[in-house]
């Protein structure tokens, strides 16, 4: 019986079956691996597109970017200041979490999209001061709803830009490519 099975495995049909089984296993694993890489849902499907279309500047909601390390998330008070006056806030199901959270005094738990590991000391301020625009790293927010990270934020990506920024300026290059500039 077992022997017959092994005999069958050696035939073309058997080989195909083995191939399919292997592929199924592999794709199952790949899918599982993929699920571990997915971020959980945001509490609100925040449409950046809409807000940018209204002409709201990035720094209005993320003012920390021009001042220090963290760009920051707007407080609910800031959201509510506008939304409170918008009739749709009361009716829209999409906005219900905001309304509920504000009324209940609960906080919204956002899932960070662009984040660097904690052994990297990133500071927004010098990047903004050097004339970088938000979209160079975070993508064009006028095109997306929920923010997505368009970059693989790894060291090579950081360095490429640093080296480009330094250009021929040796002193700047030394500073911008020093390990201790980001790692401490």
């Amino acid at each position: 019986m077992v022997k017959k099975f092994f005999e069958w495995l050696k035939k073309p049909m058997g080989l195909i079956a083995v191939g399919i089984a292997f592929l199924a296993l592999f794709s199952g694993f790949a899918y599982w691996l993929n699920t571990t890489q997915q971020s959980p849902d945001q509490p609100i499907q925040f449409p950046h597109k809409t807000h940018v279309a209204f002409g709201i500047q990035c720094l209005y909601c993320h003012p920390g970017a021009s001042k220090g390390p963290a760009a920051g998330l707007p407080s609910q008070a800031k959201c509510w200041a506008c939304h409170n006056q918008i009739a749709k806030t009361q009716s829209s199901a999409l906005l219900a979490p905001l309304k509920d959270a504000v009324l209940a005094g609960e906080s919204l738990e956002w899932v960070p999209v662009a984040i660097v590991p904690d052994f990297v000391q990133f500071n927004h301020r010098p990047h903004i001061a050097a004339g970088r625009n938000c979209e160079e790293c975070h993508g064009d927010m006028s095109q997306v709803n929920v923010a997505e990270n368009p970059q693989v934020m790894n060291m090579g990506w950081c360095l490429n830009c640093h080296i480009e920024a330094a250009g021929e300026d040796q002193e700047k290059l030394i500073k911008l490519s020093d390990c201790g500039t980001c790692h401490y």
Partner: protein
Amino acid sequence: MIRPEEIKMSAEETGKWGMVIDQDICTGCQACVAACAMENNITFVGEVDSGYGRSMHWIRIERFWEGEYPEVKMTPQQPMMCQQCGHANCEPVCPAFATVHSQAEQLNLQVYNRCVGTRYCANNCPYQVRAFNWRDYQRPEPLQNQFNPDVTVRRMGVMEKCTFCIQRIHKAQDTAKSEGREVRDGEFTTACAQACPANAIVFGRVDQPESLVSQLKHRRHGVKHLEELGTLPNVTYIKGG
């Protein structure tokens, strides 16, 4: 691409940041040790491990004894931390480039995330000032609230050491740059120097002759520890009165 010949060897330089420690007035009160631990998220290791030479102090205060009772005397307390050598023994031996020389700040950097834990650097450090994370030491809730966000929280298997509070250097430089000026002497200091009740630790630019640390270094008869090894340390000790 930087051409190697354009990089100045730190041996030819005097370094950039330096410290002067006055052993005559150091009382060994441990305030610097505590300040360093608080600033740099240094973990405590408990009784057994600390007794077995596994404490994580980035700075320790050494003292010895001279003479016999009743003529016994404690030698001047000697705070010992990374000397930020210009010619550092720790750097070339790391196979992973986890400890390298900062061109910009002339410090010995320890890049935690690059460290694989061969511990060669610590072995080769004549000052024995490197601390290794022998375990994942736990800090129970809510002690983590105290973590300084400017300093990486190190994990098991990683070497660490005094950084001359490089996060403060960066912060001061960032502030100065945003205000369009140079960093002023004394504008900021390291956590240990900040805390020292006796002001026995002074930190600053050793490459600027007018800085306090340069003045002290030259005015008082400072010595550098194990200077004979050619390590070009950037910490100067003032021994006597």
